[in-house]
Structures are given as structure tokens and as C-alpha cells.
């Protein structure tokens, strides 16, 4: 018994010593890896234990497992099972947070489908008071925005996530200013499409912030390539002129394109 105990002590001590000696070899690669993958960090708000454990155990198979779970989520979506749909949607983004697709569609389900289901379950749009409907919309929109926030920690350069946030502010919360902030963030991301910049101006205009809209369009117009129909440089210039006219900007202060 003594010799077995002694052996156990020696083995444990040997492993512990090895851990101390070998860990510095990979300290830097590990630090870089953790920065790139939030799931490897045990921090609040990342569903970290779940993600970390799942990532750890499933490895490359998490894509397959997440896909299977997504299909199961839709089975519950068809039955309008709120709890089951949300649970599976969050499970999928936990298991495999890499595809933006999962985050986007999960947020859309939270923001658009859930309010409709809840209101219909409570008696329908005619029966539920408007204030209650707004409260439901607001609550679900908040849940969707929280999910998109979590998604951006994983995909900080994603344009689509900011565009989706803007849509939710606009369509579900009736908050064009919130949408404008989101469109600006989207425009700041690499390879952002030109339309998000134009949309920011449009929502500012609708919110009555015409001066801000004008300043924004003047800011972005120089960067729009001429001859590219997608960039819409001519359209933006036209909008600038319209806003200048609406705001009574003197001719001397009118925007002059640099080319």
C-alpha cells in the first residue's frame, strides 16, 4: 500500500512539474488563440462554460451537431414552441458560433416571430392593448439586440449583424436614431456595401435630423466611386442637393464635389 501511495505521489508530482515546465512553451500561441476565440475564455456573457465545453469536446463535429440542432429548432418553430425554439436557437449559437447565419436568423426569430406568437397567444392583435403589444415588441427586440451583441463579440467585423440591428431598431422599436447609429457602425466595417451609408442618411432624415443627414452625406460622397452604379454617387449628390434646399443652405455654402 505504501509503495502504491508513494508511486501515486511521484506520478502526480511528475505531471505537475511537467505542467509548470512545458506551459511557457505555448503561452503566447495560447494567448493569441484565446483572443481569437471567445468560446475558449471563461468569461461572463459568453455562455462560456457551455461554449467552451462544447468546443472542447466536439471540435470539428460541432458544425454537424449545430446543423442538426438547427433543423430541430425549425421543427419547434413550426409548432410555435417559444421555449423550445429559443432554447435550440441559443444552443446552436453556443455549439457553433462561427456561421453568422445562425445569429442573424435567431435574432430575427426573436424580434419578429416571437412577438407575433405571444400576442396571438394572448388573444390577438385586436384584443391585446396597444401598450401591451409595444411592451412585447420592446422586450423581444431587446432580446434580439442582446443576441446580436453577443454575436458581434464573435464576429466584430460583420456588416450583416449591424444591418440587422438597424432593422430591428427601425422596424420593431420604431427608433430611427438607433438605426442610424447601427448603420454608421455597419459602414465602418470592412467591405461594407454602399447602401448602408445611404440608409443612415435616410433614417436620419425621417427622424427629422436633416442637418445631420446632410453632414453625413457630404462626408461619404467623396469616397463613392464615380461610374459604379452600386455606389450611387449621383443619387447621393441628388440627396445632398435636396437637403440643402430643404435646409435653405446658401449657394456659397453648398457642397462642391471634388471631382
Amino acid at each position, binding site marked *: 500500500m505504501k*509503495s*502504491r501511495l508513494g*508511486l501515486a505521489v*511521484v*506520478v*502526480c508530482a*511528475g*505531471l*505537475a512539474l*511537467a*505542467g*509548470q*515546465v*512545458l506551459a511557457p*512553451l*505555448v503561452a*503566447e*500561441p*495560447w494567448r493569441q*488563440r*484565446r483572443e*481569437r*476565440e471567445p468560446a*475558449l*475564455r*471563461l468569461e461572463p456573457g459568453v455562455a462560456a*462554460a457551455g461554449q*467552451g*465545453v462544447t*468546443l*472542447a*469536446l*466536439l*471540435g*470539428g*463535429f*460541432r*458544425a*454537424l451537431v449545430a*446543423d442538426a440542432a*438547427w*433543423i430541430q429548432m425549425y421543427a419547434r418553430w413550426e409548432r410555435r414552441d417559444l421555449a423550445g425554439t429559443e432554447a435550440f436557437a441559443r444552443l446552436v449559437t453556443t455549439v*457553433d458560433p*462561427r*456561421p*453568422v*447565419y*445562425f445569429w442573424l436568423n435567431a435574432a430575427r426569430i426573436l424580434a419578429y416571430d416571437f412577438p407575433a406568437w405571444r400576442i396571438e397567444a394572448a388573444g390577438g392583435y385586436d384584443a391585446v392593448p396597444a401598450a401591451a403589444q409595444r411592451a412585447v415588441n420592446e422586450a423581444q427586440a431587446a432580446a434580439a439586440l442582446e443576441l446580436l451583441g453577443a454575436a458581434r463579440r464573435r464576429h466584430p467585423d460583420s456588416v450583416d449583424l449591424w444591418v440587422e440591428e438597424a432593422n430591428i431598431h427601425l422596424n420593431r422599436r420604431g427608433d430611427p436614431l438607433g438605426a442610424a447609429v447601427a448603420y454608421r457602425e455597419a459602414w465602418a466595417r470592412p467591405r461594407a456595401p454602399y447602401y448602408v451609408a445611404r440608409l443612415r442618411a435616410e433614417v436620419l432624415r425621417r427622424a427629422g435630423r436633416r442637418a445631420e443627414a446632410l453632414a453625413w452625406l457630404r462626408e461619404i460622397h467623396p469616397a463613392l466611386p464615380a461610374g459604379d452604379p452600386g455606389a450611387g454617387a449621383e443619387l447621393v449628390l441628388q440627396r445632398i442637393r435636396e437637403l440643402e434646399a430643404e435646409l435653405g443652405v446658401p449657394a456659397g455654402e453648398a457642397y462642391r464635389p471634388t471631382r
Partner: protein
Amino acid sequence: MGAPFSFLRLGLVAQNTLREAVRQRLLHLFVGLALALVLGARGLRDFNFGAPELKFIADCGFGAMTLFGSALTIAATAQLFFSEIENRTALTLLAKPVWRAEFLLGKLVGVALLTALFCALLTGLLAAVLWVREGELMALDPEGFRGGRAVSYAMVALGGWLQWLRLVVLAAFTLLVASFARTQVFAVVCGFGVLVICHLQHLAQEAYTRAGSGVGVALGGLVGGMFPNFQVLSLADSLAAADLPALGTWVRLTAYGLGWALVAGLLAVLSFRRREI
């Protein structure tokens, strides 16, 4: 008249172990399943829900290597060791002027060669599947591949190499357990336990630094410090050439993996010295 430690004898044991291993049906089963999954990944691409297809295929390939490779490593290590004890071929061999260390480390090297063959085969197949599919995608969408091939095959090779390092470490730990275990089943179960612990080791390390209770600190420190971190021995989510680690990083990761395998192997030798055959 002493007999010095002989790497030749170690190599002979390793060679014999490998020869015995490749005849086993278990190996054929795992290799077959892994190959099927790698090839089948192309058929599953319709379910990738927008994830880049090539990354999806690579995920399946490395997933197959992890899953079947780990099962193969644990089962083969335990079986190849215990068959020597139970069939008493170890009796005949250790009655020769052979160090117990030569025998045990020879077993480990034999399993390492087996897993190297496994990883090389699957990495090669995965690379071939990716190459063919990437070529098809380039023909379908030339615009999307303006910069040429997107997959770095050096990264694929690195992925296979890291996979092998993990399996060697896993084999060494399984052998460490087998060196004092009474039954093969116990060694297999502990081997799978080590696999899980090593994958979660990084969480234990963090928990250790955050835990409030003494028990939490002790447990987290124990698990975090005594087991290797398998997460560091895997590729991040990229196959792009730009993300290829520097040579120095390759060397450090290799030293880390082989270092752990050596430590576990030597501790297994220490344990096996006391074992009565």
C-alpha cells in the same frame, strides 16, 4: 555484466507492436469509418447553412481524425499492452536481457507510428477532397477566387501534425494508466477520461484563478497543472495561408506535445518497473 539501454531493442518492440496493430480489425473499422466521414463530408455540404463549404469539409475531416483517432489510440494502446500481459508474451520477452523501459517505450513508439499512419492517411485524403472541391468551386465562381486557391494546404498538413501530437500524448497517458491498472477496461475508461480532461484543461486553469473556495482552487490547479491543454494543439478556425503559424510556433507546439508524451511515458516506465508480471 550489465546490458546498456538499447534503442535498437526499443525499435524492435515498436516494429513488432506496429505489425501486430495493423492486423487488428478494430483499426480497420476506425480507419474505414474515418475515411467514410471525410469522403461523406462532401455530401453533407448542403447542410452547412452558409458556413464556407471548404471550412465545413475541413471541420468534418479533422473531426473524424479527432473522434476516431482518439478512440483508436486509446483502444489500441490498452489492447496492445494488455494482450502482452494476458497472453504472457511479456513473460517471454522480459525474461530476455531487455529493460522494462525498452519494452514499454517500444509499445508507445509503436502506437505513435500507428497513429502517424492514421493521421497521414486521413490528412492526405482530406487534402485531396479539399483540392478537388476547391477546383470545382473555382470553376463555378471564378470571381470569388480571384486571388487563387483559398485553402492553405500547409495549414491542412499542420492540422494533421497537431492531431498526431495529441494522439501521441493521449497514448502516453493511456499507457501510464495501463502500467498499473489491473484490467484493460479500466485503462480504456481512464484514457477517455484523460481525453475529456485535456480538452477542458483550459477551463480548469481559468476556474482555478477565479475560484473563491479552497477546494475549487485546489481542484482547478490540479487539473489545470497536471494535464496538457489539447486546445492549444488544434487549428484555429482558419485555413488561410495568412493564418499559418510561424516556424517558431510549430516548433514550440511540437516540443509541448512531445514533452508531455515523454513525461507520461517515463512515468509509465517508473510505474511498470514495480509491476509483477
